[in-house]
């Protein structure tokens, strides 16, 4: 229908005025024959009936001819297969037309399905049945005993252990747990990589020398090279083990902002900006401080400060105020479910629930501190009978946490009520640390003053421990323990003779049973009398 054609240009000479624009140049037009005829007619009529002339001009059109030749040719074909698009917007149409045949299908199938569902809910066919996918070990077995002879000569105890985020490196902090005085004793933090082939238990892979005793250590949850530590003299230090010259990345130094008393716990907390972490440190001077790391200057910058004063602690009618005016914080725990809540235990046995975002200023004199301290305590639980050494929030239930102190009891408490839900007598002497298992909701482990690590399973009806780990000579306190969150089989326990034992747990202590979450829920919903 349409074909390209070259037609001569049409020009009509003006009868009224001489043309002003100069030579009109011909313009090549490619159009269909019929359309062109109309155009010609139109132009002609325009020129005959109007009294003025319009002219247009285009700049010179240059044309060139060039020739190209291909030397060799290949031809290829491709084809794609139509992909089945899973269009998520198309599905789950609550309203609108249902696909054809759906109603009939459901009619056919519904009765059969409901019968099967009912039978299944009543069935006992699979009770206690478990498939054997992995080799099951019945016992807890000892894997390694890690020691640092240099620290042992000085008589240092292991004060804290922490697994790195990859689960293969363990960091052990040395210091003393029985000293009450200031010491100038140097100590160290030792790292062992357990996945290395040439693991030497008597020789750490890396030794970080520290000028004072280390009382707390925590590995960064995302970057395996960063380790935060709290010292006996109140400093908080961050080490970067990937640096060869000076592993100290940042430290607080002894400024007006820092702690004055031993730092008993350090944690990495996620800050508001995603991906960044700050260090939360708590000391027995009654202060909890949040720092960010400034690696260029090698300093830690104080971001928020929380101070505990006896008058500002919320009291219920049954609680009596104990001790002096400051509340010495000996244990802290972060809640993995609620980033705003943290729990604090004190030397006097107080247990407090606190909030990061509280705005009430603390009743302490801020002597030259850059950030005004706030009072974060929101709720006070029934105090335990002695200093609280350890608190840990359950990773499986948002309201449960366990607390342990010098009275030999581990109390399972709920965030919602003041009284403990369960008290489990773990040992006759002090309990230094308690931690929930990362794989079984009902299991927790406690490090006792007798040297044993007791593992309790709340699913059992009896009050005796499900497992006891006794390493070497009794009489040496087990001061700290840590479950490996990547490799759920491993448990590290540090002792006062300077050795750290790595244990592999039995399958029973590790694998979750089908109704455990339900039982945990039941425990949490109990109301204490």
């Amino acid at each position: 229908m349409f074909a390209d054609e070259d037609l001569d240009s049409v020009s009509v000479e003006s009868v009224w005025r001489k043309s002003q624009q100069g030579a009109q140049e011909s313009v090549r037009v490619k159009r269909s024959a019929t359309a062109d005829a109309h155009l010609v007619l139109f132009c002609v009529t325009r020129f005959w009936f109007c009294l003025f002339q319009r002219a247009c001009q285009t700049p010179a059109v240059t044309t060139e001819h060039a020739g190209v030749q291909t030397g060799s040719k290949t031809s290829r074909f491709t084809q794609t297969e139509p992909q089945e698009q899973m269009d998520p917007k198309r599905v789950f149409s609550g309203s609108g037309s249902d696909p054809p045949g759906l109603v009939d299908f459901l009619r056919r199938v519904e009765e059969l399905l409901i019968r099967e569902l009912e039978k299944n809910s009543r069935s006992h066919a699979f009770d206690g049945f478990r498939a054997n996918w992995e080799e099951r070990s019945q016992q807890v077995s000892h894997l390694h005993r890690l020691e640092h002879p240099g620290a042992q000569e000085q008589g240092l105890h292991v004060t804290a252990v922490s697994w790195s985020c990859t689960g293969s490196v363990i960091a052990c902090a040395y210091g003393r747990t029985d000293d009450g005085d200031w010491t100038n004793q140097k100590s160290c933090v030792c790292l062992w990589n357990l996945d290395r082939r040439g693991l030497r238990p008597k020789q750490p892979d890396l030794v970080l020398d520290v000028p004072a005793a280390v009382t707390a250590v925590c590995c960064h949850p995302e970057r395996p090279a960063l380790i935060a530590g709290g010292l006996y003299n109140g400093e908080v230090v961050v080490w970067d083990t990937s640096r060869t010259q000076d592993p100290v990345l940042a430290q607080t130094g002894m400024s007006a902002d820092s702690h004055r008393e031993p730092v008993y716990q350090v944690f990495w907390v996620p800050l508001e900006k995603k991906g960044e972490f700050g260090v939360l440190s708590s000391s027995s001077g009654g202060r909890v401080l949040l720092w960010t790391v400034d690696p260029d200057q090698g300093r830690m910058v104080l971001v928020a400060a929380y101070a505990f004063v006896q008058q500002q602690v919320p009291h219920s009618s049954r609680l009596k105020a104990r001790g002096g005016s400051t509340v010495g914080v000996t244990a802290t725990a972060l809640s993995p479910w609620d980033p705003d809540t943290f729990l604090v235990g004190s030397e006097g046995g107080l247990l407090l629930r606190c909030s990061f975002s509280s705005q009430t200023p603390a009743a302490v004199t801020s002597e030259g501190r850059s950030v005004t301290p706030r009072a974060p305590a929101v709720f006070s639980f029934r105090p335990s009978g002695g200093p609280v050494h350890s608190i840990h929030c359950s990773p499986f239930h948002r309201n449960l946490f366990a607390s342990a102190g010098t009275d030999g009891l581990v109390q399972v408490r709920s965030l919602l009520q003041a009284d403990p839900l369960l008290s489990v007598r773990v040992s006759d002497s002090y309990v230094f640390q308690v931690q929930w298992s990362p794989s079984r909701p009902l299991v927790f482990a406690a490090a006792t003053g007798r040297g044993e690590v007791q593992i309790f399973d709340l699913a059992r009806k009896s009050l005796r421990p499900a497992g006891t780990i006794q390493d070497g000579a009794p009489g040496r306190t087990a001061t700290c323990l840590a479950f490996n969150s990547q490799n759920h089989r491993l448990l590290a326990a540090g002792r006062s003779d300077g050795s750290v034992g790595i244990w592999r747990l039995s399958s029973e202590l590790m694998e979750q049973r089908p109704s455990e979450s339900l039982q945990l829920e039941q425990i949490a919903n109990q109301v204490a009398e």
Partner: protein
Amino acid sequence: MAEVEETLKRIQSQKGVQGIIIVNSEGIPVKSTLDNQSTVQYSALIHQLVMKARSTLRDIDPQNDLTFLRVRSKKNEIMIAPDKDYFLIVIQNPSA
């Protein structure tokens, strides 16, 4: 349509039911009570499983065919009722 919704509600009200997904014969979810990501995951994987189970049975005995498939796991049980055009997948936790 109301009848489809009512049927789904009846099934959902059975003890321990955690989720229901209806998948068409190509493996594309048509209705679901779970969130988007889980639904897409379940429907793609279970569709393959049902096809494999059916072909296994028919290879063993060509006169036989799959009527119902139950997959029991540590945490729950997945029940699949297959048909020519659709599958109905129900996830139930019997001990809950």
